[in-house]
């Protein structure tokens, strides 16, 4: 679709010498290299390293060298790949690929600092949220069709937790959208993060809610019940090995890059001002906050997560929204 449209719009730019359309290469470069696939996957792996390093330092450990996440994925690709007896072979093979595709597609809508997103249009914020939701559904299916009791318990927990954090997350981002009076990520960026924010209090409420729900979205401690190692091994991913697990790992890292990138773009002032560099700095900052949160608490039981989300976080996020509506008049 995208390629088609662009080509129609730029038919005049076809190079007459060899009859080749340069915009196709340009688009492919954007989708596959920067700011698309390669960039987001590497950003995700880099953020994984940042997270692991900070987590390790907080625990008085040394932590991995910077290239460790890449090595982990490479090694997984070379490992034996097993489909368990009770699993649905079709789902088992294709879901990890869909997972990665969905998260990478979500990133195509996210501006990398001042560098425009690959595909930007009014309402792209909704599309990103929809694709992130789809990622959770895929995680559920991954666990459900893996034919393992741990996978099933994990899958059910994943959707239960989804019900807990999704509403506050959307509400927090909606607060920003209301303040900016737009559903377009780049417009929200331009209107709320440039210049001194007029409604600091409302922004802060939304930011706090967004960070906590993002922690739940990314299944990190204290909201890691769906993947709780000591309880249900690895939850939905228990039966996955080799290449398929590598795809899932990449998808999870990408999901992290999408979530962290989205929060950075919408809330922090650096991406709009310092461009790509500011974007990366902001993602590191947000990751830092998430890592500190991960290091300082124990895991919640799944029912505690739900109670916490509906009793405390949701009213808080609703308050942010109401305030946003009031101050915007």
């Amino acid at each position, binding site marked *: 679709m995208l390629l088609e449209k662009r080509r129609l719009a730029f038919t005049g730019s076809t190079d007459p010498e060899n009859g080749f359309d340069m915009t196709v290469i340009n688009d492919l470069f954007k989708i596959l290299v920067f700011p698309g696939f390669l960039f987001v996957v590497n950003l995700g792996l880099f953020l994984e390293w940042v997270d692991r390093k900070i987590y390790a330092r*907080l625990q008085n450990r040394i932590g991995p060298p910077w290239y460790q996440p890449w090595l982990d994925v490479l090694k997984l690709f070379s490992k034996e790949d097993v489909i368990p007896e009770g699993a649905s072979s079709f789902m088992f093979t294709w879901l990890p690929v869909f997972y990665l595709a969905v998260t990478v597609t979500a990133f195509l809508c996210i501006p990398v600092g001042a560098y425009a997103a690959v595909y930007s249009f009014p309402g792209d914020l909704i599309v990103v949220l929809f694709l992130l939701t789809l990622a959770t559904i895929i995680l559920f299916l991954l666990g459900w069709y893996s034919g393992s009791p741990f996978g099933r*318990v994990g899958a059910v927990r994943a959707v239960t937790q989804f019900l807990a954090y999704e509403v506050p997350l959307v509400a927090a981002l909606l607060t920003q959208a209301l303040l900016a009076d737009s559903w377009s990520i780049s417009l929200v960026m331009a209107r709320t993060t440039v210049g001194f924010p007029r409604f600091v209090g409302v922004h802060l409420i939304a930011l706090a809610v967004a960070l906590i729900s993002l922690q739940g979205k990314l299944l990190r401690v204290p909201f890691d019940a769906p993947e709780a190692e*000591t309880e249900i091994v690895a939850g939905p991913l228990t039966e996955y090995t080799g290449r398929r697990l590598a795809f899932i790992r990449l998808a999870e890292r990408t999901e992290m890059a999408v979530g962290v990138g989205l929060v950075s773009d919408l809330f922090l002032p650096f991406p709009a001002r310092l461009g790509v560099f500011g974007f990366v700095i902001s993602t590191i900052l947000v990751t830092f906050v998430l890592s500190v949160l991960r290091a300082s608490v*124990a895991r919640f039981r*799944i029912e505690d997560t739900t109670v916490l989300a509906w009793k405390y976080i949701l009213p808080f996020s609703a308050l942010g929204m109401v305030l946003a509506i009031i101050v915007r008049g």
Partner: protein
Amino acid sequence: MSDMEIPVGPQHPALKEPESFRFELEGEIVKSVDIRLGYVHRGIERACQDRTWIQAVYLIERICGICSHSHTTCFCQAVEDIAGLEVPRRARYIRSLIGEMERIHSHLLWLGLAGHEVGFDTLFMYAWRDREVILDALEAISGNRVNYGMNTIGGVRRDLSDRDVEELRSAIRILEERAGYYTDIALEESTFRGRLEGVGKITKQQAIDLGTVGPTARAAGVNVDLRRDDPYAAYGEIPFNVVTAEDGDLLAAAQVRLGEIRESIRIMKYILDNLPDGPIAVKAPRRIPPGEACSRYEAPRGEDIHYVRSSGGDKPDRVKVRAPTLANLNAVAESMKGVRVADIPIIIAGIDPCFSCTDRLVRLQDRTSGRVEVLRWQDLSRRYRR
């Protein structure tokens, strides 16, 4: 969600040793649990009968990787009882000292594991880092971190030098401060506390009826401690308090263990201040006269019992070991009823289980037909030879 069975073990990240717990679930609620032991049976009791008394001490030391000193002390006491040996006073003090150091590192290990089981890995890393302080001190004294090889029949093998005493005192200073810090974290940090409070609860009556021992019993308010009730080594001469709690849940178990770390530090200080002079061992005969004895020891996990029988030879006639985990497993089965999946690992870890010490037999049973097989060593090697 319909009923399902989830297998925790023989291989599971929550278990540090292979043992099988099968949970029947209704949604996330546990309906029943089937505990099957025997995956790490090593036949140490029988192997002791083929070794001389001194060799048996080293084999007994390897029953447990954590409470190695507990088992050797218990065994040596039984043998000394049969042979009528009088252990010198200094040796008894050193035995108590090592025993308390072992208790501290065992309880710190438990605290770290408890943190890990509820997803609080930061506590895990910190507790295990500070456990190194006591392990280093043990290495300085005995030359080993885990199997210290301190005990021998009739006393201990290594003396404490003045330098050792000084090193121990500085280790104690660090530990004292850290123990206070952990007490604060474990009992104040709300997410960690929330995962322990009211979980794995047993009443005082249940604790008595199910025959629980050690910190598990003391957490439910049962005031038992062999160091006070049936003093051995130097405990008859050392003043200390028995730490108990009332609630019987895992928070109470954590309180008891953290309190015991502080008591152990007090005991260590007393021993270092009042270490008597004299020899550290008496010579034991190569052949132990005929007789039998039962010895009890308050290991970090609870009461450890050794029964030893001699027929007058240079090898034991029979050695029987009852490790504390076996006594506490009934409490695990009891407190599992109606809990949520999320609490399974911490309840199992709550008694500080040590499965390889517990296993005494393997039963080969066909799961479908229920037929039980007896295999000899030759059968095994023939069937599984590659």
